[in-house]
């Protein structure tokens, strides 16, 4: 006996299992990347989204291929969900010419225009105005595309947040501002850097709907994003969504996490793991068995191993690449 997991996007059982698969894939991708960094096999830095998978997958799954996203520095999950080839992502982290950005961008700048990913951003809040610009294109060209602008909690204190929400609202731009509130901007707890309970209340100032949701509840994320996307597509303007979540790992690869307790981390990992919780829901609804889940995980692990092999097989850029692509033709 199975029961349906009701959601506003009308996703069927297969689509929900696919969402579960994607969350697993993202976690394994991030854990693999974490491993490579720890081993010194990838250089530079990276910001992992382990623990935030439901926010990325729940929101991105609602989009069409032709829609756009602007991703954040913690954007691997957002990027995978939008449809970027994992092989190319891994190759980018390895600095290979077969990477999404030919090895010139790295983790913080993965972009994939073909799938509508206008790029991750190394500057906190840097994506807000760009998302408005993309939405403006859709509006001026009368397409029905929308732009989902991902951002973090810390970015809501940037001027670009306020300038962009206001502009999007007065012009009724087809954009959805999706804040992944993972509680900390590097080391700064959001509760110490804003004097409000829910970041979504800032929407009031700009005359747009704002909603705060449990960002670790996949269905809640799907529902809120679906409403916002529909509103944007209908030409009714932007929405501000705050998805409360938690990043399990440190801010970047070197983070002793002195600003929070191990107990707090443990609570989020055991009680509020978005993947475990959704898995439990699927099993309870009779849509997934333990064995099927194991199979999904095994296949995801294989996809990651293939991505690593693809990345390793790629070539490093030639030295002439240093001075190539500074200017467009």
């Amino acid at each position, binding site marked *: 006996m199975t029961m349906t997991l009701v959601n506003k996007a009308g996703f069927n059982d297969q689509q929900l299992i696919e969402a579960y698969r994607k969350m697993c894939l993202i976690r394994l991708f991030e854990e693999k990347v974490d491993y490579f960094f720890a081993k010194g096999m990838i250089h530079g830095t990276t910001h992992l989204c382990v623990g935030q998978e439901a926010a990325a997958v729940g929101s991105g799954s609602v989009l069409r291929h032709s829609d756009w996203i602007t991703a954040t520095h913690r954007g691997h999950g957002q990027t995978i969900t939008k449809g970027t080839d994992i092989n190319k992502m891994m190759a980018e982290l390895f600095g290979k010419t077969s990477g999404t950005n030919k090895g010139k*961008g790295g983790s913080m700048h993965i972009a994939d225009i073909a799938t509508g990913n206008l790029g991750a951003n190394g500057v906190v809040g*840097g994506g807000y105005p*760009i998302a408005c610009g*993309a939405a403006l294109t859709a509006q001026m060209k009368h397409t029905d595309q929308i732009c989902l602008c991902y951002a973090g909690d810390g970015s809501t204190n940037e001027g670009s947040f306020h300038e962009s929400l*206001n502009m999007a609202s007065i012009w009724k731009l087809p954009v959805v501002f999706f804040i992944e509130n993972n509680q900390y901007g590097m080391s700064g707890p959001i509760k110490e850097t804003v004097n409000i309970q829910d970041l979504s209340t800032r929407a009031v100032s700009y005359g747009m709907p704002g909603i705060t949701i449990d960002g670790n509840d996949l269905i809640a994320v799907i529902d809120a994003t679906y409403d916002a996307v529909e509103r944007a597509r209908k030409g009714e303007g932007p929405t501000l969504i705050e998805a409360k979540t938690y990043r399990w790992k440190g801010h970047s690869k070197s983070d002793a996490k002195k600003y929070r307790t191990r107990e707090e981390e443990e609570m989020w990992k055991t009680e509020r793991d978005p993947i475990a919780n959704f898995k439990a829901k699927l099993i309870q609804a009779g849509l997934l068995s333990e064995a099927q889940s194991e199979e999904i995980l095994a296949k995801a692990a294989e996809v990651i191993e293939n991505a690593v092999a693809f990345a390793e097989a790629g070539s490093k850029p030639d030295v002439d690449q240093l001075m190539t692509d500074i*200017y467009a033709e």
Partner: protein
Amino acid sequence: MREITYTEAVREALSEAMREDESVFILGEDIGIYGGAFGVTRGMLEEFGPKRIRHTPISESAIAGAAVGAAITGMRPVFELQFSDFITIALDQIVNQAAKIHYMYGGNVSIPLVMRTPGGSGTGAAAQHSQSLENWTAHIPGLIVIQPSTAYDAKGLLHSAIANNNPVMFYEHKLCYRTKGDVPEGKYFIPIGVADIKRPGKDISVIATSYMVHKALEAAEILALEGIDIEVVDPRTLVPLDKKTIVDSVKKTGRALVVTEAVKRSGFSSELAAVISEEESFDYLDHPIVRLAGAETPIPYEPTLEKLAVPQVDDIVTACRKIMAAK
């Protein structure tokens, strides 16, 4: 040929480009009914409507960034920064986003946008509305930087800027707006990266930018009466810089005077002097390179002080006399 003002020439280029290409549009503060702080877009709202002549909130970061996002997704935005001093608010979107995206994304997307903005002093607007900050953007790989001095150059270079697939910083000068010159009707292109010899001469190469070109030409008339024949070289684009025209001129005259309005220290005048001394022109120099540039001070309000802060015609005349008098 008919004579029009620099302001009209800029407006003409914008209007012609917009008539031809639906993806070109303008956004900026007060560019609609008001016609822009300097009247450049006057009358354009009536022809093109508020969707394409897009009056924005006072939000320079959102203006610049919206142009970036629109450019990535297929439009060709031209944004007006009301005063070039306000670039401080827009700089993240210009420097960290627009300039780098093409390279950072492995050449997979281009950013065809233009920033138009008036710089320079001489209007009594004081320290926060009178600076010449073009060197800030000239320092950033990925940006093209243009500084037209005449109506003819402004129109032809703006057409090239709009047609270009890179972020182009187009610095106008407030005192240039009312200058007049012969400008052809219809669209024409002046290639980006080609300097112009505004006055040929044999004694000193005066490399001057923006409004300083006009001052150098005025100085040339005075100096001519004394038998000093200066050549006025206008780089027109700072990035890419037409080094060859500058170097060839200095090879011919053997003397170089660089004149910019921007503050001397770490300004573009330093770059121009460095180019002359690094290239083969160095071997032809009969006199050390001389630079005339802005005083290292904020631009003051009071008119006498304001004039003192930037090179004037007399300063150019005096500098040229000194160079010629040296043995």
